Every structure is written in C-alpha cells, then in structure tokens.
C-alpha cells in the first residue's frame, strides 16, 4: 500500500498526475451524468399493452389476500393472480416510483394516501361503466375526502385506531387517551404507540380536543409537547411488534388498529379494545388501478368480484377485516355483526374522524415534530 498517496505534497510528477486524473475523472463523470439530465426513479406513466391477459398482479397488505381468495377468483374468472406485499403506504409509493409502477394492476393504498398518489399522477380514473356493485357500499364509503364519488378507487376494508389493553393488568379499563398520561409512571415501558406520525400526533391532538387533521401550527406544537412528556415512558414506537409482546405480558397497553384487535381478542380473552374518548381516527384501505396497469381488464374483474356481497362477507369473516359493503353485513354470522370491535356502534363512529391529506406546510410541521420526537 503506497502511503505516499496520502502525503500532503505529491512527491513526483507521476503522483500529481495520478491525483489530478482521479479528481478530474470523478468530476467529469458527474458532469456527464448531470448533462444527460437523468431523472430519479424514471416512471413512465403511459399505458403499456404487453402483458399476459391471464394474469393479475396485486400490490397489497398482508392481511387482505389469502390463497383461498385467489383460488376462488381463479375458479370464477380463470385469471391467475400474483400478489406482492407491502407494509406501509410510503414503502408502496417508493416502490412504485422506483420502477415497479408498471407491474401492478391493483393497489391497496390507505384513504389519506390517495391524494398523494393523485398528485404524483399514478392513478387511473375508474370507469364506472365497468364497475358493478358500487351500490353495495355503505353510503359513507361512496365518497372520501381524497376521492369524491369513487372516481379513483373502491374501499376494501376499514377500521378504527385505538388502544388494546390487558384487562388483568388494567382492571379499571381505559376510557380516555389521557389515561396514558395520568398513569405514565405505572405504565412505564409497558405501553407502545404506532410508528406512524399522523396517528400518534393525531391521538395527542384528539386528547387535546383538536381535530386529527389539524393544520394550526400552535396546536400541532402543543400536541408534540404533550407527546414529549409521554415519550420517556413508552417502550417503543411500533406498528407490528407489539402483538407478541402484549400476548406475552411484556406490554400492558398498545396502540393498534381494530383489524389487528379482531384476531388478537379472539385468541386472548384477557385483551380488550377501545377507541378512547374524546375520539380516534377512522381509516380505510382502498383498491385503486394505477395508470400504468398492465391488465386493467383483470383489475376491473377483481374489483367487481370483491364488491359482490357474498364474496365480501366470506372475506370479512375469513380474513378478519371490516367490510364497507352494506349488503354483505347481513350475511355475516350474528356474533360477528354484534362485535363492536369490527363493527363499532354509532356512538363510537361519531367520535371517529377520518384522516385526510394535509397542506404542505402542515405536513412539514408534522415531519419536523416527528423527527424531533424520534431523536
């Protein structure tokens, strides 16, 4: 190893030439690259018409598609379905923009994420003539803040966000978000919150009686400050990792989605789910067709299949999701219809607010406070 390479003064003309050449090479290369005008994550949003018409590619959450659904769909339509999974909306968008934009015919974004996809020009408008069964949906799901009148997507599942707690360890039950703050010493390292900036800042905003889509800078700051009080007592911010820990007894209360709670409460009778006062968030996951979908025909067939009441009912039962299909609910077993975790009462629904996209300045504020909270 020639240590002369790192001496302050080049010893010989050869050394000087070497250093100059490597420096110029590096600079020249970046100039060439920038001169080419390369785009980051080159997404071609034109229609591509080469693809097997017998195949459907889905990009979805793990809980929403299982083998039996794919098999039944194939029996009905003859289409082979391949699914790929993601676990967060942001990762889905990053994957789409990094080149997978042309692979999938159906995506499953969350409701608040649809405006972002629209802004990035990734979605195709739904042709209502090709969609059958929109009338099956509950009226509040015929439109959303991001998508009026189902122009771009069809909801698949919905739920609430709340707290799942261990009844044995917390016998008095939890009624209010403030319970966490009032009992933070008792619950030190025994509670977790979601790893989602909107949900966590949202629950702090709700506990202060503000809206979950707050854009007022002072109120957002107050919510952040309230969270910093709780932060030293939180075990971790996690969206999935709390399940085994709650079951094992490491955690006493975890913030989670109602769709997670359905399965857990069935397995473990000690657990309870509650949407604390003064309120929580209502989320929904929608099926959309991307602009560059290779097989839009198959996509419409998939959506129509899932809008059928009997299919929606069987999916809701088997995969433990809450269906927005009004005509499917009477087909569910009585105990599932009465399950207040899956199908909340009107009183709980009145407390829940659905998450909408925020203004750019508000988004930046949320990001800033989330980064500071995480540091």
């Amino acid at each position, binding site marked *: 190893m020639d240590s002369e390479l790192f001496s302050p003064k080049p010893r010989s003309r050869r050394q000087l030439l070497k250093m100059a050449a490597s420096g110029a090479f590096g600079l020249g290369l970046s100039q060439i690259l920038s001169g080419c005008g390369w785009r*980051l994550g080159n997404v071609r949003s034109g229609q591509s018409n080469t693809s097997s018409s017998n195949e459907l590619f889905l990009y979805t959450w793990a809980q929403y598609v299982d083998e039996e659904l794919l098999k039944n769909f194939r029996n009905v339509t003859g289409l082979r379905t391949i699914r790929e999974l993601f676990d967060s909306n942001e990762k889905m968008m990053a994957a789409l923009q990094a080149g997978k934009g042309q692979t999938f015919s159906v995506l499953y974004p969350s409701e608040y994420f649809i405006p972002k996809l629209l802004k990035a020009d990734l979605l195709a408008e739904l042709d209502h003539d090709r969609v059958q069964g929109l009338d099956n949906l509950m009226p509040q799901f015929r439109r959303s803040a991001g998508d009026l009148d189902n122009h771009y997507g069809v909801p698949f599942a919905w739920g609430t966000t709340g707290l799942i707690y261990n009844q044995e360890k917390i016998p008095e039950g939890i009624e209010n978000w403030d319970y966490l703050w009032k009992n933070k010493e008792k619950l030190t390292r025994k509670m977790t919150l979601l790893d*989602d900036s909107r949900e966590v800042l949202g629950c702090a905003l709700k506990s202060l009686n503000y809206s979950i889509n707050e854009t007022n800078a002072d109120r957002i700051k107050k919510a952040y400050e309230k969270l910093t009080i709780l932060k030293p007592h939180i075990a971790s911010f996690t969206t999935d990792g709390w399940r085994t820990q709650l079951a094992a007894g490491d955690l006493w209360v975890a913030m989670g989605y109602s769709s997670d709670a359905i399965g857990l409460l069935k397995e473990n009778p000690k657990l309870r789910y509650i949407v604390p006062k003064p309120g929580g968030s209502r989320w929904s996951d929608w099926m959309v067709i991307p602009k560059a979908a290779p097989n839009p025909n198959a996509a419409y067939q998939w959506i129509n299949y899932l809008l059928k009441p009997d299919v929606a009912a069987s999916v809701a039962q088997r995969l433990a999701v809450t269906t927005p299909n009004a005509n499917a609910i009477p087909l569910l077993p009585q105990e599932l219809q009465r399950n207040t975790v899956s199908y909340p009462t009107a009183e709980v629904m009145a407390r829940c607010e659905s998450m909408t996209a925020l203004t750019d300045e508000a988004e930046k504020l949320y990001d800033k406070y989330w980064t500071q909270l995480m540091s």
Partner: protein
Amino acid sequence: MASSPVSNSSQSWSQRLEPFLMLVPAGLWLFLLLILPTLLIFQLSLVPGIKPGDLVNPSSLENYFKIFEPSVLLVILRSIGLSILTTLFCLILGFPVAYWIALLAPERWQNLLLLGFVLPLWTSSLLRAYAWISILRPTGVLNTILTTLHLPALDVMNQLPAVLIGMTYSLLPYMVLILYSSLEKLDRRLLEAAADLGAPPKDVFMNVTVPQALPGIAAGVLLVFINAIGDFINPELLGGPSSMTAARLLYSRFLGASPDWGMGSALSALLIMLVTLAIVCLIKYGDKNARSI
C-alpha cells in the same frame, strides 16, 4: 514493494498491458457497483428537495444544512458514541480471548476454538437480533433466571444498553479474528527475552506484546467502528424511541413516513466520508508498523 511499472523499452506493449488487463474484471465491478453509485449519491445530495420523477440538477448544499439541525446532530453524535463504546467493549472482551487462543491454548485446538467463536457469523444477523429480543425482554430468559434467583429484574429492552449488547455481540467475532491473526505472528522470543531480562509480566505485556499487536488492534478497532456506525438491525430491533441512530434516520428518510431523499443522500454522503476517513487512518497507521519489522 513492487515499484510502479517503469516504462522499459525492452518490454512489448502486451507485456505492459497485462497488469492492467488483470485489473479489468475487479475494476469494472468496483466501478459499476461502488464508485458510480457513490458518485450518484453525492449528486443526489446536491439537489434540494428531490423527489422520484424529478430531474437531477445538482444546485445547492441545502440538504447538508439540514444535517446541522440539533435533532439530526444529536442522532449522529449518538451513533458515533455508540460505535466508540461498542468498539471499546469489543476490544476489552476480544483481546483476552484472542490472546488465549493464539498464545496459551494448545496448538491442535486453535482452529476449533476459533471456529467456535466465529460460528455465530454463519447465522443471519437478523436472527441473532431476535434471539437477543427473546433474552432481554421484560419476561424473557434473562429476567426469568434473575427472578428465579430472587434478584431484581433488569429493564434493558428497547433502550441503549440493549442496543450496545446486541452490537457488541455481533461485532465481537470480527475483533477476535483480527486480533488473533495479529497475535499469532507475535515473536515469542522477544517475550522470553524480556522475561529473562527480569521484566514482570505486566511490563512484558505493555512494552512487548501490545506494541507488536498494534497494527492488529488498529485494524480491529477500525473495522468494528466502521461496521458499528452503519449497523441498522440492532438499533432498529433492540432500540426504542431514545436510541435513534444515523442508519435508522437514513432508513426513515428514504422509506419512512416523511421521505426526504435529498437529506437522506446528504446523510449517506456524510457517513461515507466518515468511513473513508476511518479507512484512511487505518491505511496510514496500520501498515507502517508491519513494514518496519
């Protein structure tokens, strides 16, 4: 050391070309998969507010200024501090092991012992992190043993101590391997000579063993430090909200809820420069002593 190829007119051009041709496969691989991506990252870091789909037009250092916000600086300092502590622990724990295997253990067992120590590297580091989770959990193996012995339970999980334990465990085999290969080359005659001249064992160690092992110690320290700075799995799985490190911050900037690829690239560039600095130190101070022998 081989002198640089001096143009000797008696050599044919094919003979002169040969060394460079040998370098082409490795050179191409290095260029396409290391140098080019690094240059691209540097380019991306100079574009403020870049989003996928944007034209890449290097124009300002704004992303680097974002790094100098207090919260980000805190994260970087925490990463460096964790890495230094991990390196220290690895050195303190690894040196006796390497010394024993190299100098004190029976010769025929040396390879077996070394293999045994390096075996954890054969498993995925993700699995090892999960194993630590099940040990350090509030109701995990460690606390079960402690409570059975009527000792107070330790609350380590999701905090910096757990991250430290995980990182030290992951990087210890590297330190032991490097120290072993250095201590193996120790000239025992010098040790005997020092003892014969009346030096107590402590002086023999400090004045004879350590200086000879210094290049190995430098190499081990820097390798562990470089790996620790970039470690993502251990802080992510074993750490909590108060143990955000540079690698986790990078991940959240690219794939998290608030993507900021420009700042992520700037942070990557900073880490690359930090690691390059460490490697330069290694080259400068590591080999010199070896060459003097």
